[in-house]
């Protein structure tokens, strides 16, 4: 089978063929040490501060649309993961600026005093560059949403917001016009057709380009570490908690990028990023909001929904959301011709343990979006509202029965951060399904819910706090539902 032993990408327009040990270099080390591009900074090495932000355009296999340049964290990815993309670092902005001038974003940052010590500054400039590729920023709130993933300790952010709101981006060239020209795009699409079989004697990196190749490889190496986006693995590796000998990357498999929407049904592949998922939800306003407090733009642009599910962290943000919507997982098995389907509620078995058997992987996820008569609520409570790992997160869903609005025909109460896995409060649900909603049953439900959760105390919150917050969120949701009689105020 034709294949290659290198990865190929563009870096500020330069064609890069990387192979051997270079594949496993942290991208920031590659940029800073091998290419002398020291404008990209490293602070936290865990994708939390954004000092390492670079732009990446990745033409998705099987998708003919022109990709856009998105901000990603360079510190938590390896060189191999940049295969078939075009990257732009802070040094690359020069070619987008008018001759012998600063890029308009840089000019605005200088004019508005958006830099003090300067260490975070390149990251902010790059995040703004990514945002402005899509059009001007008109409101402070949209600036903030674009900069959730960038920390600054000096300025107090206000000058950066002022700068972002005052940029005249019309003077700059679009990144694609320089860094993703037609020949470049054609080249990237061409290399995507070839699987990658590379690495060193000690560490292998493989990326099948077809489903058949995946099946063969997975059968042979069922224990190889799967890379969807690997944002969590990247952190673990940086912090010395993880070292793999064999990677199997899914990035060349076209079916995994598909998003199918028909009516309320949504079906999406395992390589669909959080950002793309969010776009797919755009029509359902309350669902989109959930993404404002879910990770940073840089993470959302790279990390996948399936990865968040498969990671099986008890405080991951996607599971309560998907549990409440009763999503279904499609599982690829190297030994079976067809995909196995299971409801997500049966997926989590124990702490960090899932229903995935040897060699299996999540292939796709499907769900149904709520109708206007159904109620859906998602909430996330964390130490800091934005870009923080949850202390407690909940997804609640209610469908009234046709005859009696206060009697649910479906009720799903999902909570994360209160047990070893994301969980559904099945007994509380069953109780309310049976008894219907009124002041008495809701009160009873609150105490039943307490019996179903077993939160721990840790640095994100004490067990008491998690219990009380879960109770308050559930009470708020139940109070918002149609009831036989009102719960009455003052209970909160």
């Amino acid at each position, binding site marked *: 089978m034709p294949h290659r032993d290198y990865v190929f990408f563009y870096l500020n327009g330069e064609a890069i063929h990387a192979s051997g040990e270079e594949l496993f270099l942290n991208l920031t080390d590659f940029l800073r040490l091998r290419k002398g591009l020291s404008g990209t900074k490293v602070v936290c090495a865990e994708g939390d501060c954004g000092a390492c932000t670079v732009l990446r355009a990745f033409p998705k296999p099987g998708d003919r649309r022109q990709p856009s340049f998105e901000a990603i964290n360079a510190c938590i990815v390896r060189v191999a993961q940049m295969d078939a993309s075009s990257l732009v670092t802070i040094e690359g902005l020069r070619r987008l600026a008018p001759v012998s001038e600063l890029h308009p974003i840089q000019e605005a940052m200088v004019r508005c005093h958006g830099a003090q*010590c300067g260490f975070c500054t390149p990251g902010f400039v790059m995040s703004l560059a990514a945002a402005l590729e899509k059009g001007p920023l008109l409101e402070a709130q949209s600036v903030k949403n674009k900069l959730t993933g960038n920390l600054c300790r000096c300025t107090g952010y206000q000058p950066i917001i002022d700068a972002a709101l005052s940029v005249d981006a019309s003077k700059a060239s679009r990144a694609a016009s320089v860094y993703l020209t037609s020949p470049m795009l054609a080249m990237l699409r061409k290399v995507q057709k070839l699987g990658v079989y590379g690495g060193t004697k000690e560490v292998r990196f493989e990326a099948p380009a077809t489903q058949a190749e995946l099946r063969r490889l997975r059968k042979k190496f069922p224990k190889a570490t799967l890379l969807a986006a690997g944002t969590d693995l990247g952190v673990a590796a940086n912090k010395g908690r993880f070292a793999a000998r064999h990677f199997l990357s899914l990035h060349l498999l076209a079916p995994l990028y598909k998003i199918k929407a028909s009516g309320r049904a949504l079906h999406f592949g395992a390589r669909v990023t959080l950002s793309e998922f969010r776009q797919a939800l755009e029509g359902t306003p309350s669902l989109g909001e959930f993404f404002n407090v879910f990770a940073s733009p840089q993470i959302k642009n790279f990390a996948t929904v399936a990865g968040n599910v498969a990671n099986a962290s008890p405080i991951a943000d996607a599971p309560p959301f998907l549990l409440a919507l009763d999503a279904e997982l499609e599982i690829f098995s190297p030994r079976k011709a067809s995909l196995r389907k299971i409801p997500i509620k049966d997926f989590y078995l124990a702490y960090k343990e899932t229903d995935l058997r040897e060699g299996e992987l999540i292939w796709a996820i499907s769900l149904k979006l709520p109708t206007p008569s159904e109620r859906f609520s998602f909430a996330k409570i964390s130490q800091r509202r934005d870009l923080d790992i949850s202390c407690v997160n909940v997804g609640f869903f209610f469908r009234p029965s046709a005859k009696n609005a206060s009697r649910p025909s479906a009720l799903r109460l999902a909570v994360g951060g209160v047990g070893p896995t994301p969980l559904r409060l099945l007994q509380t649900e069953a109780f309310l399904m049976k008894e219907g909603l009124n002041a008495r049953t809701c009160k009873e439900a609150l105490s039943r819910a307490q019996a179903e959760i077993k939160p721990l105390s840790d640095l994100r919150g004490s067990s008491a706090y998690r219990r009380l917050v879960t109770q308050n969120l559930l009470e708020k949701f139940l109070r918002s539902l149609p009831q036989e009689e009102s719960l009455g105020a003052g209970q909160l």
Partner: protein
Amino acid sequence: MSEKGKFTPHDSAVLHVQGLSEFIDDRPRLANEVIVGLHFSEKAHARILKVDTREALSLPGMIAIYGATDFPHNLWGTIFQDQPLLADKEVQFVGEPILVLAATSQTVLDEARKLIRIEYEDLPAILSVSEARKAKSFIGSERFIARGNAEKSLKVAPHRIEGRIEIQGAEHFYLESQAAVVYPQENGSLEVHTSAQHPTEVQHVVSHGLGLESKDVVVVVKRMGGAFGGKESQAAPIAAYAALVARKLGRPARIVLSKDDDMIITGKRNPFEIEYQVGFDQSGRILALDAALFSDGGAYADLSTSIMERAMLHSDNAYFIENFRVRGQVCKTHMHPHTAFRGFGGPKGVLMIEKVIEEIAHRLGRDALEIRKLNCYRDGFDVTPYGQRVENNTLPELFSRCEASSDYQRRRSDITRANQRALVEGGEVLRGLSMTAVKFGISFTTRFLNQGNALVNIYRDGSVQVSTGATEMGQGVYARIARIVADELGLPLDRIRVMATSTEKNANTSPTAASSGTDINGAAAALACQQIKARLSELVTKLFRKDPSLWAVKTAGLGTELEIEVRSQTQPQDLFNVSSFHDVVFDEGFASLKSDPKRRISFSDLCNEAYLNRISLSEYAHYKIPNLAFDKLKGQVGETAPGILGGAFLYFTQGVAVSEVSVSRQSGEVKVLRSDVLMDLGRPVNEALDRGQVCGGFVQGLGWMTTENLFYSPGGKLLSHSPSTYKIPSIHDIPRDFRIDLLANSGNLVNVRGTKAVGEPPLLLAISVWTAVLDALRCVPSYTAPENFPQIKVPATSERVLEALDPTRFKEIG
């Protein structure tokens, strides 16, 4: 003072935005360079029984591992030399460095660290202030500041409150972690490039530790990627580790801590526990305050005793308290040695008195702002408990202006109504409003630190290099010094370059700390310029008496003319205004006669004439802050000369802020809805940079007040050691409506150009966020009774707020 340059960008801004500014780890790696790392203690307090490095050393790429005995002198410390560079027989905190590792790459280092085996024998560890107090484990002796008779007047006061506050520490979270690169030079000398606020201290610790003399070590600081006090003392040992390797191996050595290691190893803002009694009358007038301040110094002294002094000196804050007694004691624990952090001890003293005032207001059923205004320093009531008069006092004006501009009274009644409604109707949020003040003393409390020096070199083309001891950490001290020099010499800014800070050019400097960078170093630079300017002015007058065809530029090569000599000896000048000598004015790149402005010579021609006439174009000047005298043992100002009282501080930077918060009754989450900050910064040389400090300082304080929660294991290990667990403010957390304004004040005659120091004071105004949370909590049923006041630690995390909203319910559900 001219308006020019009021909004000039930071001198590195254009580089910063392009990623071209060079930080320590951006220095290109040399071929034979060695990467240095640390292996540190996992125990808070233990005896080291055995260190086994054999396996680690056998890793390919490992070069060497060094221990305590490799340093000829293993102890360092800024105030007391009590801290080992490397722990030898005993470890005193989790994160205490034990071994220095040298390898060819960071990857090898990380692997090697996992292979090092250390056997410990646990010893009892003290991990909090209260444990330390029980064990009488202290650093230094108790200090006090007292006036009147607090004890007696507390007894007779109509009202009395007793209370306590726990204030947690905070991580600096400078984005550039501690870092240094050391290059071995000829004859055993070393060139150290480091990210440090105090190059002289680095020079001292490196040379002393390695058994060298100061002359053998040159320390250069170009810029820091943030510091905030965290690189005042604690950058020095980091550089010493790299220096040890460079000296042992004769190879360049680089150390760059990971964020996790940096947070575990280095000290934080000192946690404080404060107990107080306050007596007041029915009107809310404070009659007496008696407070005991205890801080967690950590395992070694570091700067903690000075930090405590500043906490005590700020326990009055903006308020006149007739009978006053504050005692302060630093506790020794087995935590990382805590250190300077923007505000030093100031915020802790201020936080206490601002909380006390909220409590008085609650007891009397009044608005806290009334109590503040009633007790504010004012004419006739303007002497601090330590005996210094508050000169040029703008506090009453700041209070009244901000009350009006923030629409305080209307918002107060809106909030009261809204909260009542929320309580009745089960609304999800409550709101709180509070105004606090700052009166921050400017000068180091240790007198000898209040000195600085500057070297000004003017070249024949009239361009200028300035070198001082000030270090650049983002605050813009270079830009301010450049402005002062440009104004003094009448030159455009682009003719001035402030050079990287180096101990080679400026010796025996003070840390860039205590907000004093511009005050001390800017004044020294101005003095140096004045001396050159005096000579040049005399030269101008003499040149203008001579036919230009006979000037040196035409004749010096031939030696046909008499050389011009100048005799100017400058008298100490007033630094408030730009100086002037011999009726000569320097402006816009020219020197001209005041009496005859048409007679002028370009600055560059003038400099060339000076050179050709063998007149020096360089000057070195020393500046010391005048009139300082504070007796730390008596807690009172002392005499500067017989019969003349000095001050603890040269002047005070003052300001107020009103913050409005919402607290969620569901999760306890605090949102800052609006903050209005009004500060008296004198007459800024660069207002844009000053506003930048106000905005950034306030937000940094806001993080400490709300989300920044240092979380330790029961064994004393910091668990929140990266941004995924330690939450500094994100862009969403700044006040939704954020208004910053400055009060015009041309009355600060004592400081260079009439400016006021700005680095630290605005941080203290974020205390208004915390008191606003108290204000919101006051309205819930748990605190209806005047004697019940919400007790909440700093920071007011969501969890603590939710608990304080209904402590009983919280207890029950847990």
